[in-house]
């Protein structure tokens, strides 16, 4: 029995990379992410000091301080580069965790149906009632905002949305003949889920992972901006805006550069996700 034509999802992967590289927004976005990752790995080699007072408080951009200085006299340029550390640590780790939890729950829910499925879906319904940010605020208040705690929180909060989409995709796959044949061959449930179903919904998992990455980076920056994420003296971008927003009338440079940094990273990741989605559908 020829099963290859049924694995339509996998045929979409051939030729995807060249197709993506022909898209200018994709290439540009990948470059932006690479630049920020490079900055995160190398900024401390350039003698930048994001924590020390330069002696000039709220001075305008100049040759010695390209982005000016903030309310405590620290170089905004050094702090913006150093801010890549927290932006590229918590969000991506949380997104990976959310994708893993969401995929596992989604596949299990669709494979076993019955009460497992019902219980999970009703639980997700309840979790979806509160606006996500309000829900996050309560959880962060309860469990604290250290980096490991934030990673787990983002993973748990984003997982239900991913689980729902993976569940829907697996339900479609469950109706196909290869699942029936696998069952008739006597393959175990674990093997069918891991070796048959997951590879067939892999493109959807990748798209969800990229989308949740952009949302996670945005969420961590938002929490820091609200004063609930990273705490001073962290050079986090969201926190920098929170700390300097009162000086916006006299020193716009203290908030504009961190703001543009957040925006460039979040938009770049979002565009990467959108491009992958378009290339695969």
């Amino acid at each position, binding site marked *: 029995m020829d099963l290859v034509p049924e694995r339509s999802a996998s045929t979409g992967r051939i030729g995807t990379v060249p197709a993506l590289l022909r898209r200018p927004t994709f290439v540009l976005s990948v470059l932006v992410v690479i630049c920020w990752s490079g900055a995160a790995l190398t900024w401390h080699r350039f003698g930048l000091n994001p924590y020390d007072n330069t002696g000039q408080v709220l001075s305008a951009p100049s040759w010695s301080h390209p982005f000016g200085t903030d309310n405590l006299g620290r170089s905004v340029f050094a702090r913006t580069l150093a801010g890549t550390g927290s932006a590229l640590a918590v969000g991506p780790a949380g997104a990976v965790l959310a994708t893993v939890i969401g995929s596992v729950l989604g596949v299990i829910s669709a494979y076993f149906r019955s009460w497992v499925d019902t219980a999970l879906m009703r639980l997700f319904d309840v979790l979806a009632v509160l606006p996500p940010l*309000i829900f996050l*605020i309560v959880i962060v208040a*309860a469990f604290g905002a250290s980096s490991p705690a934030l990673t787990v929180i983002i993973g748990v909060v984003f997982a239900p949305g991913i689980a729902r989409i993976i569940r829907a995709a697996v339900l479609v796959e469950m109706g196909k003949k290869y699942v029936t044949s696998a069952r008739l061959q006597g393959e175990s449930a674990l093997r069918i889920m891991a070796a048959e179903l997951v590879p067939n919904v892999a493109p959807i998992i990748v798209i969800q992972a990229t989308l949740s990455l952009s949302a996670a980076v945005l969420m961590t920056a*938002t929490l820091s901006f*609200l004063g609930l994420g990273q705490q001073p003296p962290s050079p986090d971008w969201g926190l920098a805006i929170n700390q300097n*927003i009162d000086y*916006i009338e006299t020193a716009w440079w203290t908030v504009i550069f961190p703001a543009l940094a957040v925006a460039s990273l979040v938009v770049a990741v979002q565009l990467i996700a959108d491009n992958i989605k378009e290339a695969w559908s």
Partner: protein
Amino acid sequence: MTIASPENGLPYPPELASASAGLTAPRGLGVLSERHGRALTLLGRRLIQIPLVLLAVSALTFWLVQLVPGDPGRNALGQYATAAQVHAWDVSNGLAGSVASRYLHWLGGFFSGAWGASFVYLVPSRPLILGHLANSAFLALYAFILLVPVSVLLGSVQAYREGRRTDRVITISLMTLSSVPEFVIGVLLLVAFAVGLKAFPVQSAADATGDLGQRIHATTLPAVVLAASYLAVLARMVRTGTAGAITAPFHRTAVLKGLPRSVIVRRHVMRNALIPTLQLLGIYLGGLLGGSAVVETLFNYPGLGALMVTAAERKDTVLLTDGVMVTGVLALLALLLTDVCMILLDPRIRFGNAEG
């Protein structure tokens, strides 16, 4: 009962009589009343679901807030109070006993209107939350008034120009706009319009007693930021809905029978395009009314979202629990309102199928 009797003159059992009545199905108004019956069933089911979901949300929220570290009694009374005094304070504020008994105490208080007092603001939490909610509602209404016409216009222009350059340019711009964080849009607008042009105040702390015109002026920038964050997804829905209506056979019929374009747009296109849009709005309405924590914090606007952030920051557990519950109630009521609107707007809705 099923035996035919000469008294009621039925030639066959009543079940069969009703079955044959079902075969000669009622047409016209009869069908309509059946649909209304179905809609009422849905509303009835929602009215049972909502309290249950609320109960689950309240239990979850209450339990989470109990995990917030800190000792409210100690904080309120200071470091020189004795342990007995702190305990007495805890008892009088409903903070003693097991989590379950405290939860029931709080739940009873919440529904009877006795909401407890905020530790931070030292006032009853009810007027505090309702006052901030009113401010958030004002901001949400303003954002809504800006949002709906712009998204309907953009979405329908895209649908009429589907696949052409205008469509693509609007799609790309909206996609980019939607992924820029709210507080970044806010900061850029502040620098441009409040700091640069000095057209709007930097802080929009609304004074409810003040002049309405002044209040609208002060709330403009936050409302624009709030509207911008919902614009892309709403315009997308309008575009999809309109494109679907334009390609439908009834649209071609309307054009071919020579109806004026304004009538076609109003009666055939808009009505169909707005149905999915309305459904989406219902999902967001709860969030909008509950206040956007980000926009309110950025502009120092005294809304419910900003109040929740302060409550979380300062570990004000009473205020946090009550505020989150109010947000949950609002979100569920908004969903109910959407259901009612959908029934009024779209008589075809088959709720049995929509529930998946």
